[in-house]
């Protein structure tokens, strides 16, 4: 771990957010989970929420998220984070409850739980990391894999005749009245990372104000399982994922606009 001693003329411009734990992660080089973690931790710090936040981690690459954040956390069954978060939140409505989920977890095995949490207007916030592949199990086809995308379980490319089409979760959830803030952002460059941070701040404010279900979908890279160099992977987000998953605000109710 790096430590910095500042002298009188130095200014600290960058440090680990207090809400991130001082530990190594299991993420591969070039993976944008680290960026997503940092943005969420910064937002929690800036809003002063760490001491009253409970993070619900998923099954997938971010299975250890409950250890990577310096706050109370738990580890849900695959796809069930929104149900577990519902249990935590209903008993302690004054706490902040956040689920952090990947695309296999949220859009495949956990489709029912996320849809009904949103439909109920469950006052929780979901950070949805969409990298169009199953990372932890070694690169299988996900519900968000693109048509033609080669994975270890679609070695000839995703065949839409056999396996259908990618699920667009932000669009889908935005049709539900209980969802009040649903946006999609990307982590492929600095400008978009800044927009993602702003969206996370807004989503947390939605929960702080008891306004209902909020979700920020983050298009994210998986260089290891995409078989690309980290920089190429960022270009792949821009060139391949964004056309299939357009960035934007899919649901922002009037009250949220004035936050």
């Amino acid at each position, binding site marked *: 771990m790096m430590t910095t001693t500042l002298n009188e003329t130095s200014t600290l411009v960058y440090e680990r957010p207090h809400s991130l734990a001082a530990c190594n992660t299991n993420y591969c080089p070039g993976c944008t989970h680290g960026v997503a973690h940092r943005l969420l931790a910064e937002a929690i710090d800036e809003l002063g929420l760490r001491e009253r936040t409970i993070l619900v981690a998923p099954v997938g690459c971010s299975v250890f998220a409950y250890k990577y954040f310096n*706050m*109370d956390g738990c580890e849900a*069954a695959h796809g069930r984070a929104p149900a*577990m978060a*519902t249990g935590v939140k*209903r*008993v302690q409505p004054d706490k902040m409850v956040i689920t952090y989920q990947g695309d296999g977890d949220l859009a495949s095995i956990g489709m029912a739980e996320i849809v*009904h949490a949103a439909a109920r207007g469950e006052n929780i916030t979901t950070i949805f990391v969409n990298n169009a592949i199953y990372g932890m199990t070694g690169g299988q086809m996900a519900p968000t894999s693109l048509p033609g995308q080669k994975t270890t379980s679609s070695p000839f490319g995703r065949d839409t005749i056999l396996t259908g089409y990618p699920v667009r979760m932000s669009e889908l959830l935005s049709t539900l009245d209980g969802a009040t803030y649903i946006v999609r952002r990307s982590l492929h460059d600095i400008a978009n990372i800044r927009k993602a941070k702003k969206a996370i701040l807004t989503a947390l404010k939605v929960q702080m104000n008891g306004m209902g279900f909020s979700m920020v979908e983050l298009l994210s890279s998986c260089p290891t399982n995409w078989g690309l160099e980290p920089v190429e992977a960022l270009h792949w987000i821009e060139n391949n994922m964004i056309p299939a998953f357009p960035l934007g605000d899919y649901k922002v109710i009037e009250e949220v606009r004035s936050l």
Partner: protein
Amino acid sequence: MAKEMLKGNIAIAEAAVRAGVEAYFGYPITPQTELLEHMSRRMVELQRVFLQAESEVAAINMVYGAACTGVRVMTSSSSPGFSLMQEGLSYIAGSDLPCVVVDVMRGGPGLGNILPSQGDYFQITRSAGHGDYHPIVLAPSSVQEAIDLTTLAFDLADQYRHIVIVAADGLIGQMMEPAELPPMQSVRTNRPDWALTGADGRQPNSIASFYLKAEEEEAFNQKIQNRLHEIRDAEQRFIEYYTDDCELLVVGYGSAGRIALSAVETARDNGMKVGLFRPLTLWPFPEKRLSELTDMVGACLVVEMSAGQMIEDVRLATGGQIPVGFYGRMGGVIPMPDEILQAITTHCRQLKHCEGAFTPLERVNS
């Protein structure tokens, strides 16, 4: 409190309310739905948490989340729904969390029917989910016992940080009979130190059922096993009738045990030396007392509303020293006292004729 006419499902729900349950999550399924309906009114009146989940899968995972916060929490279901809860139960066990689950068993397998059954015995007592553990399982045979065991369930869950299952059947859930509810306990305001309440002025708490290294997972499993050993030592519960001088010991739990008692009493009136052993805990199975009784009786007759599941525990407890016979009905058919009496009579006759050279009569109804 005076006795009142109470339906089993409602009595269980109200007993849980009075035991201080703070959160209930459930999904409608016959024959337990009245329990959920009672909660939908009472929990809201008392400003506690009630939520109808989108599925039993979601309900048990909501229980998992609420249990993380250190409150008394429960769900209820019936056999097909209980099957769907296996995943969440295993995670709850793997996270050392307390909760209470009620299974009002019905006929199966598959969709089966909505009639009373005891066909979930294996599923409930062996683990209720993947991995090496057992929940504590309590089996009521009347509405009053359902109330008393539900109250006990919350205490045991907290005492051992463990899952406690109240294994009722459709008969217990649906029938009405006079019973007395306990007084209202106040809801606890303090939270255990492991609860997820926000890391305010303390180090963060984390709750997970995840150990990547085999040695760590084994150490956690050993911790579970040590606790199970303690529970096995301390919590074996049962009721016995006419065991002072019995030659044939009938063993039955829940509704089957209660019906068997009628048959045993008639057999006694007819001069047969018959007793009844009725487990109240299905896990831990009351093996110590049954093992002692093995030395005193000539044979056992197990009566179940299943194809014979608890009989395996009876065989283990009796250690092959005496014959173990069986009488059961399946698929929602309730055995009548006359049928059980006939099985008792047949077994008693064999005992007297054979003088120790007894051949077990398996499934005399087949």
